[in-house]
């Protein structure tokens, strides 16, 4: 009985009592509903089309080889200070990532001054956020008309890759002419060096110069510390002792948001340095050390996991954004915040005088501080630039003593603080930041960012640190994974080196 009943989709033979909409299916002409023969022909056409496109693509060099090592490296034969005034009419194209408040203002001012000083030179500026610049820069500078001046991120994935492809001009001659060599401490200059063969980083030719300094420090909320009856710590021991006391008073000891993955690298770097790993880490980042299978690395991971377990950092740290955490800290949630100097202008704006800042306090009172840090992105000159001398003059201008004062006035930390930095009122948070920077440079206390170590270090470390915080990756596992990534990369570099010889 039931079997004879029309079950839905089949055509209904009865005359409908009222007009029905046509039963034709609206998607009858969808690509997957044709009859067998037509489909076969269509498939054939598709295969032909794809094949044709593939052939066409194969003819086009998808891999522009014009940037091979040594192909376009001009020796920059300059021997005396170039004078942009004599360069005639020129337009300097500049791509940078200084889009944040103070940094943008500082650069706009300097650009205007440069144009005023050399009236026939025009600066065409393209400013993009850090990640936008990172994703477009590669295509821009490998083209035929690249910008003259760019900001390149240090490390293997950007600067070293650009040098390997011969896209940047070595600046060693200019460094001599403009006395950058004596102006900058060598630890800072070295971060912008790449070896001639384009394999090593931190040594070799100079490919850029940085305008700003930056380091990871400890921000503290004076009001919260006062409420918890804790004084700003003078040693690392005082800081760690304060954490349980702050917690007992019902306040959050350390504000921390790691949804964006990278913040933990900074916190971890600080802990690693405090555990005594600074020297070894510095060597290993530049590929000269033994790696990361060592006590301080494991201890740092253990500390981070303990902080989470004991509730010194928020329970949902892995699920809170970096900016959200900073906002919460500014709103009074948390006694400490461990992050970079770049946060200072924004935090100061909301917190005012209750904000304090210091480099991570040393193990012994008044000893030299050590922390993760370095400098802003390097300003580099592309090898296809038509005005390399003007570009060099521009680089010198935006890193000069005068430029440093402009930066200080706009609340930015210059790599080399100038006169204006000394005029900052004593005890203010800006003064604390500048003092810390000068101390770190004087005592050689800067350890480069861990993610410079290998091209995929950022990826693996940031992912694994989320695991450490979560408790699913043990300190031993973390350290052995870091070690494996390190040795794999060093082996690969050595193998490449042998193949070249």
């Amino acid at each position, binding site marked *: 009985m039931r079997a004879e009943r029309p079950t839905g989709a089949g055509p209904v033979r009865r005359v409908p009592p009222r007009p029905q909409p046509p039963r034709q299916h609206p*998607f009858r002409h969808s690509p997957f509903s044709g009859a067998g023969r037509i489909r076969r022909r269509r498939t054939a056409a598709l295969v032909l089309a794809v094949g044709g496109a593939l052939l066409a693509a194969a003819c086009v060099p*998808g891999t522009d080889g014009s940037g091979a090592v040594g192909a376009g490296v001009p020796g920059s034969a300059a021997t005396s200070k170039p004078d942009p005034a004599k360069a005639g009419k020129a337009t300097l194209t500049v791509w940078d990532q200084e889009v944040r408040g103070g940094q943008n203002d500082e650069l706009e001012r300097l650009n205007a001054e440069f144009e005023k000083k050399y009236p026939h030179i025009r600066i065409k500026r393209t400013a993009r956020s850090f990640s936008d610049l990172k994703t477009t820069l590669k295509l821009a500078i490998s083209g035929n008309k690249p910008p003259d001046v760019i900001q390149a991120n240090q490390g293997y994935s950007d600067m070293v890759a650009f040098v390997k492809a011969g896209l940047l001009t070595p600046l060693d001659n200019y460094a001599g002419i403009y006395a950058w060599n004596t102006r900058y401490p060598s630890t800072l200059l070295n971060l912008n060096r790449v070896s001639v063969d384009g394999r090593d980083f931190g040594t070799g030719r100079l490919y850029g110069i940085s305008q700003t300094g930056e380091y990871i420090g400890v921000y503290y909320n004076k009001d919260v510390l006062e409420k918890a009856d804790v004084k700003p710590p003078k040693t690392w021991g005082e800081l760690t002792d304060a954490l349980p006391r702050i917690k007992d008073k019902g306040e959050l000891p350390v504000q921390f948001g790691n949804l964006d993955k990278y913040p933990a690298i900074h916190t971890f770097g600080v802990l690693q340095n405090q555990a005594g790993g600074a020297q070894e880490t510095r060597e290993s980042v530049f590929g000269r050390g033994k790696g990361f299978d060592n006590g301080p690395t494991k201890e740092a991971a253990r500390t981070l996991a303990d902080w989470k377990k004991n509730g010194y950092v*928020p329970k949902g740290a892995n*699920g809170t954004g970096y900016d959200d955490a900073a906002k919460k800290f500014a709103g009074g949630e948390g006694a400490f915040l461990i992050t970079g100097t770049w946060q200072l202008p924004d935090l100061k704006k909301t917190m005012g005088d209750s904000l304090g800042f210091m480099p991570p306090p040393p193990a012994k009172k008044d000893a030299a501080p050590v922390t993760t840090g370095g400098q802003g992105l390097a300003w580099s000159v592309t090898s296809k630039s038509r005005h390399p001398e003007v570009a060099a003059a521009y680089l010198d201008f935006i890193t000069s003593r005068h430029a440093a004062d402009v930066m200080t006035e706009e609340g930015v930390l210059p790599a080399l603080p100038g006169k204006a930095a000394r005029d900052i009122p004593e005890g203010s948070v800006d003064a604390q930041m500048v003092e810390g920077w000068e101390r770190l440079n004087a005592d050689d206390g800067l350890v480069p960012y861990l993610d410079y170590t290998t091209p995929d270090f950022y990826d693996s470390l940031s992912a694994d640190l989320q695991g450490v915080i979560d408790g699913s990756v043990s300190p031993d596992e973390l350290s052995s994974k870091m070690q494996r990534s390190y040795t794999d990369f060093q082996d690969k570099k050595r193998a490449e080196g042998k193949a070249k010889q």
Partner: protein
Amino acid sequence: MRHAAGRYRRRAPGQPRAVGYLYVLPALALYGVFLLFPLGQTVWLSLLHWDGLTVATWAGTDNYQALLTDPSLRGPFLHALALLFFYAALPVALGLLLASALSRFRVRGMTFFRTVFFLPQVLAMVVVGVTWRSILGPDGLLNDSLRAVGLGSLARSWLGDYTWALPAVGTIGTWVETGLCVVLFLAGIQRIPRELYEAARMDGAGPLREFFAVTLPALRAETAVALTLTIVAGLRNFDLIYITTGGGPGNATSVPAYEVYHRAFETNEVGSAAAMGVGLTVLIFVLTVSVARLVEGRNR
């Protein structure tokens, strides 16, 4: 005039003629330049080792072999398949349920509800991502609600939890795609002749029986379309992951589309990224063709 008419009479009206291709040509040219050519280029790149800058070297099938053997490349595909449950299966099931329920009762202001259901489809994924990121945050709306009803022990940082991040992202997908399915099915149900229901009721079918005997078979074509659209949306999911988790915690939510971007632009592995893109294309193709064959039931 008569001449031309005579010539055309020999052909049945509507029969395909070569001149048809002339009309398709402009579209085909665009399609070729912007789709087929890049596709071919991607396939070509996937056969190379290339960092995006220096001279590429021939890789042959290396990148594809890695796709099958390297867990960090295989993982994203597994996540994507798991996400399909949330992006395709669940929305279609929910859509069928809601649509048949809505069509059984006369609902006042139906247009309003349809609009509300469809709204997530219209919103930019970035907006959806940012909103849900705040809802699912440790102090977000979801946890606050759980605490308010005394279920505070269930509260967690949903996007930062290794076990829950993938389902959490999946739930956002369910929310987005369900509306599309409901609207599609509502339109389909309206075309089902009422007498089929009457007949079913006369035979004593209850609401459940009615659903399986009348509604579901009649919505076969719509189901296929809904599945195709949601599967494609689920597999090429990039923006939501980018905004909410960035593939984390660890690599718990990395998906192929995100990994393509990540490798091509951030870690300078263009060949590997291209291979992944091709793999994704093949997967989408295979799944949509299977849907067309199995669900829509053509070509049997």
